[in-house]
């Protein structure tokens, strides 16, 4: 009876998100399967696709293509990484929300005053959490089954295992850290680091072993439709079970409401606490540092491997020319090569913007904002300070990424890319970031719970749409719905000022409308 109640409670808290993730898994897979047929049967398409796939930028994002000539292989290559990231991120956020978040809010004290100990509540909750990745994996496998069941099974099982790995990660984080945000940050950092490890493993041959310590690497090593290897997935399952077991052991040894790492007294510092703007910057510094380390490392790496990648492309000119036909810039020049990489910077920076403004929305919901709005400060100024700080952070990340890529290219011995060109390339995608700010603030005005989702839409959704639409040879208007269709390949080309201006104007207008609404509507909490 008590167990049923625990399961019911956990299910109620994750059902909508779980359904959404499963739907995305099915829809994305089905969409790519449907378009893959025409792509893989057409020889000329296939050749340009292979050229595209050998572009290290695409390679580091999606992993190396393994069986591009089959519908299954192509679909797995296109969808495995995005799906694993979506399932992983959702799992982490949901897991820390319904474990540490509930504990933070004091609601678990009520639950644990019943006769079930913390470990029981935790294991039932984790069990329910595991259902969502299972559903997403089964859904993806089912959508892929027409392309061959063995590969579909491996692929689906891989998605499930990645999800379970991050359930373990997040639940362990929720035991170790005494706050929800710290637990989420910790688990997302693991996701980012292991994704980066796979990218490095793919890009640098000598470091190929890194893929064995990353769930994303293991997913790739399972090679659906090209060997169907179960051993990497077994390893992933063992890791997930070990994480979960560790979480339960830690849970048995701590007090409810606290973690293993509890912050003690520290010296107070009043730096940046003198004004609303200063406070917004102060709250930004720690997360900004984490984002800066991750993006800086990624772009430095991209820069370092640029020269070897370019040598390959110059030796195989037909690849780069075909990539050009497929909508990507001339890859054989360092400018063209970096331009494609600078465009995708809009995804993480847009994500940064969405996550920061979602944190502001959370502060409203859990009433941390109340003491600030009770001060003689208008809400417009409050949200304005937050937006300004977030934008400054986004620009800082953009500049840093450009500089890191330039440093990497230069260190690798290539002198063709100047720092100014690199910065122009990264700054060129800022209009998409402005769109992300706009949708985030619109959400803050009307649907504060949807800030992350809506804020991430122009960046993440836009890029996925662009790639999928290009793959499928979709009509121009579909491709043009993506902001990425309107970015010039800077530094190879000069910026498309008109398109950038229009996107920026849309972003600014949405921001203004959303902020005005936030200034007037009733506060929640």
């Amino acid at each position, binding site marked *: 009876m008590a167990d049923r109640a625990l399961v019911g409670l956990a299910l109620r808290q994750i059902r909508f998100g779980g359904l959404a993730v499963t739907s995305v898994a099915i829809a994305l897979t089905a969409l790519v399967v449907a378009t893959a047929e025409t792509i893989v049967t057409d020889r000329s398409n296939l050749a340009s696709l292979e050229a595209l796939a050998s572009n290290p930028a695409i390679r580091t994002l999606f992993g190396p293509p393994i069986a591009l000539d089959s519908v299954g292989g192509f679909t797995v290559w296109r969808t495995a990484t995005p799906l694993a990231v979506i399932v992983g991120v959702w799992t982490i956020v949901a897991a820390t929300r319904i474990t540490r978040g509930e504990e933070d809010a004091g609601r678990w004290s009520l639950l644990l005053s019943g006769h079930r100990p913390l470990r029981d509540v935790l294991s039932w909750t984790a069990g329910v959490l595991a259902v969502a990745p299972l559903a997403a994996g089964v859904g993806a496998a089912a959508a892929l089954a027409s392309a061959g069941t063995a590969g579909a099974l491996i692929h689906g099982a891989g998605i499930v295992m990645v999800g379970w790995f991050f359930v373990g990660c997040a639940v362990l984080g929720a035991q170790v850290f*005494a*706050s929800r*945000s710290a637990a989420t940050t910790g688990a997302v950092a693991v996701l980012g680091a292991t994704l980066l490890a796979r990218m490095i493993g793919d890009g640098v041959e000598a470091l190929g072993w890194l893929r064995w310590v990353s769930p994303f690497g293991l997913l790739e090593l399972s090679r659906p439709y090209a060997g169907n290897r179960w051993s990497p997935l077994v390893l992933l399952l063992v890791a997930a079970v070990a994480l979960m077991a560790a979480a339960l052991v830690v849970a048995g040894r701590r007090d409810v409401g606290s973690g293993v790492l*509890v*912050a003690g*007294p*520290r*010296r*107070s*510092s*009043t730096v940046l*606490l*003198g*004004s*609303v703007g200063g*406070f917004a910057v102060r*709250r930004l510094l720690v997360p900004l540092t984490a984002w800066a380390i991750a993006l800086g490392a990624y772009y430095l790496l991209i820069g370092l491997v640029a020269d070897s990648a370019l040598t390959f492309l110059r030796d195989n000119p037909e690849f780069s020319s075909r990539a050009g036909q497929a909508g990507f810039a001339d890859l054989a020049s360092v400018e063209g090569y970096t331009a494609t990489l600078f465009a995708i910077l809009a995804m993480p920076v847009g994500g940064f913007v969405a996550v920061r403004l979602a944190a502001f929305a959370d*502060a409203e919901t*859990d*009433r*941390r904002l*109340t*003491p*600030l*709005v*009770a*001060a*003689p*400060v*208008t*809400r417009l*100024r409050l949200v304005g300070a937050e937006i300004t700080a977030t934008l400054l952070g986004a620009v800082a990340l953009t500049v840093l990424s450009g500089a890191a890529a330039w440093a990497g290219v230069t260190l690798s011995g290539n002198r063709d890319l100047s720092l100014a060109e690199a910065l122009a390339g990264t700054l060129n995608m800022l209009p998409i970031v402005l769109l992300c700010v706009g949708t985030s603030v619109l959400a803050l005005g009307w649907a504060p719970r949807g800030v992350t989702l809506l804020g991430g839409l122009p960046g993440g959704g836009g890029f996925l749409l662009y790639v999928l639409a290009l793959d499928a040879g979709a009509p121009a208007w579909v491709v043009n719905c993506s902001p990425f269709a309107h970015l010039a390949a800077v530094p190879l080309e000069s910026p498309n000022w008109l398109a950038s201006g229009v996107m920026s104007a849309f972003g600014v207008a949405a921001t203004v409308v959303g902020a005005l609404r936030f200034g*007037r509507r*009733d*506060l929640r*909490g």
Partner: protein
Amino acid sequence: MSGSAVRTVALTKKYGGVPAVDDLTIEVPPGEVFGFLGPNGAGKSTTIRVLLGLAAPTSGRAEIFGIAAQDVAQAHTKLAYVPADVALWPRLTGRETLHLLASIGPGTDVAYRDELIERFDLDVTKRADTYSTGNRQKIALVAAFATRAPLLVLDEPTSGLDPLMEREFRRAVAEARERGQTIFLSSHLLAEVEAVCDRVGILRAGRLVETATVAGLRRLHRSEVTVAYTGAAPELAAVPGVDGVEPLGDGRLRFGLTGAPGPVLQQLARFDVTALNVREPSLEEIFLDYYGEPVRYDCGG
């Protein structure tokens, strides 16, 4: 009368068509300690949210010293606020929180704040996420009492405090009153309201049912009178305001009295009364008088 510290005129706030506050008119003059009473869900917090500009009124007006409550940049220079359930930024220490609130607030007396930190026995070196409910409340109270704001809006400020701290709270209220600050105190701790408030407003189902001084409220309500006499028992049944006459034996009787005591005193003077004891109703009894009967809700459902 823009001289009022707090003023609402026909204030109505509806959520989804259901009124949480209904046609509320209150006026609190400067310097007064005003108790805002009502059971859970009566609309106290909603009223305060409108006064603070956190929610916009559906109709009617709310003003702080004559400034529209929605004009927060102006109105909030005049007030400090302690919410019922204090949420703080988890990574800031107590001292950092107080510094932030003082920096953006309506002006703070730092020396007095440090004194209050001592008096409320607050460890400001700890991070806010390690604070108990009571300690979070103390931070908000210290921040509010240390301001020079002419109005303090306190929403159930002592629900998490122990009796020792409750005593400090009452001292701080008394000091604020001496400085001339107005206090708008929402509470359902009747002893607290009785101890510190000049006047109370009683809210029920979103409507104001009474506004009076605590003494005035008592006068409106039934006192219990016991008399001792020798000789014949006083005949009181016909006296206006008297009810429930009850002989206690041994030359004593007890009755209830509502309204002015003149007639009953005149009647008692005709008899040989040896002792007279009047017990005024406690605020709790008055409160229950208002809420004892079932509350009718006019909205459907």
